[in-house]
């Protein structure tokens, strides 16, 4: 009986600090809002700012950002490549600049390496992932598991380009939204 009591009391003595501490540590899993600034609709630019020949241009996404205890109004939370298409229904396409391989910024390059078509596209300076202009994987040896993440994009008030900005998990073949 005494032994059992000792074990029980010992358990309580340990459990109180450990369990409460672990709960505190797990906080980022228990809340969605921590660092969650996904799925914001942002006015990015105007149609005139995009070259008509379909060359992509990079734009920062400015929105309110929460970093734990700090809230910043209108600060860069990411960036997108925007490019014009010939499709009248969808005149502009938007891609998140974050490489779906390991999360670096991809660069637009006028010519990809020969093994990845040699055509204009996006190149990741970290592990050499390559993407075509439409975001799809360009080279067979490209380490990225999926193409660049396309974002919803709309034209409003005749010439304003709006993007539904969102980040996605890196390293997975599926496009899984972060913070969903």
């Amino acid at each position, binding site marked *: 009986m005494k032994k059992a009591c000792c074990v029980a009391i010992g358990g309580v003595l340990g459990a109180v600090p450990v369990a409460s501490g672990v709960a505190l*540590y*797990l906080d*980022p*899993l228990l809340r969605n809002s*921590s*660092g*969650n*600034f*996904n799925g914001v609709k942002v006015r990015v*630019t*105007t149609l*005139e*700012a995009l070259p008509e020949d379909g060359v992509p*241009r*990079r734009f*920062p996404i400015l929105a309110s950002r929460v*970093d*734990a*205890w*700090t809230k910043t109004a209108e*600060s*860069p*939370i*990411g*960036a997108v490549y925007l490019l014009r298409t010939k499709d009248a229904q969808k005149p502009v396409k938007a891609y998140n*600049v974050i490489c779906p*391989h*390991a*999360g*670096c*910024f991809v*660069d637009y390059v006028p010519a990809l390496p020969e093994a990845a078509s040699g055509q204009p596209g996006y190149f990741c*300076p*970290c*592990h*050499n992932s390559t993407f075509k202009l439409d975001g799809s*994987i360009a080279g*067979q*040896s*490209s*380490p*990225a*598991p999926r193409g660049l993440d396309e974002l919803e994009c709309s034209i409003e008030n005749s010439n304003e380009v709006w993007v539904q900005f969102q*980040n996605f*998990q*890196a*390293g*997975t*073949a599926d496009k*899984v939204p*972060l*913070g969903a």
Partner: protein
Amino acid sequence: MIKPLLDWLDHRTGYRKIAHEALYENVPGGARWRYVWGSTLTFALVIQVITGVFLWLSYSASSQTAWESVYYIEDEMTLGWLVRGLHHFTAQAMIVLLVLHLMQVLIDGAYKAPRELNFWTGLILLLLVLALSLTGYLLPWDQKGYWASRVVTNLVGVVPFIGDGLRRLVVGGNDFGNLTLTRFLAIHAGVLPGLIFLLITGHIYLFRRHGITPKQPLKKRDAAFWPDQVLMDSVACLAVLAAVLFFVLRFHGAELGAPADASTPFPAARPEWYYLPLYQFLKYFPGTTEIWGAIIIPVLVLVFLFAMPFIGRWKLGHRFNIGFVCALLAGGVLLGYLAVNEDQHNERYQLAVVQSNRDAERVQVLAQSPKGIPPEGAVTLLADDPFTQGPRLFAQNCASCHRYGGSDALGAKLDATKESASDLKGFASREWLTGLLNPATVDSLHYFGGTKFKDGDMVDFVKKKLADPSPEKKMQMDKVIAAVSAEAGLPAQRSADQRDADLIVEGRQLLRTQISCTDCHQFQQPDSTAIAPDLTSYGSRDWLVAFLNDPAHTRFYGKDNDHMPSFGKQGRLNAHDIGLLADWLRGDWYEPDGNAKP
């Protein structure tokens, strides 16, 4: 006096027995240099604890203060660079010493029964030291550490089933920020050192329990640890310290890049040199096979290392183990070489490194400026700095037509034949205007050659009216050039403008009269008949901002504007960026000696 005191202490603590056990352990075959590695590692760890605690006393873990406090330690505080340098380079030395220690243990067979547990604690210690370096890499919160750590945490996310949750726990949310720093610091300075202390105690206890595994044949008689082996260990530790100090003094502390900025790409991101093999390895796993390179194969290698004491029992097992680890190291060296070699031949990467060094140096200059670092953090210093942002804005928005000293302003050489507008380096300076008003160069690609104005009125004027000028006309032209250039009020020409004040007044008169610029241009008074850009305050900040905002305005090119976008009016650039571009083109940015040079 001392002896009774020590007797008293010994009676209470029994320290003499402990000291005797520690110092008079038997070393079979006598002291040897090959036994020093464990001691050098312990010494390195002690350096890390001491320097780490002192760094910690001045470090502040948050997005707005991490870089700033490290900068303060490195550049402002007494011998901060030395303490940080020791911490940084001893961390690198530890990796080398770990490999040497592992190889010695392996070759001498010290991992085999009954020392399996000791070997395993050693392997876990190795992993903990690697984890220390990963967590420490982020703490300065500079671009390099930030982007490299993002890659690492994204790799954590690749772990099956629990990856994403694990990643969020490590990061402290979805994205890097305050909680990432507080967590990394707690793990780096508290959790990992605590675990290492426990394990090292166990490691040394087990080592003493089973004793040294002597290298056969024994060359000399057995001897005590003290003093021969202690002397050898001390000399080896001194050599480690000397090597570390060499690097600390050579680089005057440790590198500190530009502050972390989530919105500024950092193509120069690379891990520390000892992670380069793993980094390179990842490139060979396309698509969904990444998990093999990032997780499965490294884990299998670890499993093998842990199994070595069992494999070593077989007849050829010991040799196989040595061969395997040698092959592993050779593979690591090869992969590391491939990574470095690839980067050396990668022009984009080289440019990115130049850019990264430029930012790192620049932010220190700005931090030391009278304005100093604002509460929002040093990242705003670069974001508001024309010298930093100008070339980037130019490369992205202007370099498809214009050039800056023949390049895109970031150093990338561009196809000269595709230059379809003027080279803007030194825009509005006397030198630049002299070239514009030179019949030999006005229609070159450097000026109007690539534009529709190639055969326009201005080129026509320069070629006809300014060809073969008389000495008198030449003097007049110099005055006109000085006058127009003075409108810009360029910082680099301030003293020349003051010196030539009289000439400039004459020049203003001449451009209205003999040289007849005002036939086409407006100058200092409203002129509704003007068909060319306004020369009033030409090249000044206000003029450039208005021009970049809308070059097709009647004040500038009007309907004759050739392809130049109305950056402000069309919403392509905001007022902040247009201002930065204007300041940069004018060479107007902070310099410690007050003289900016475009």
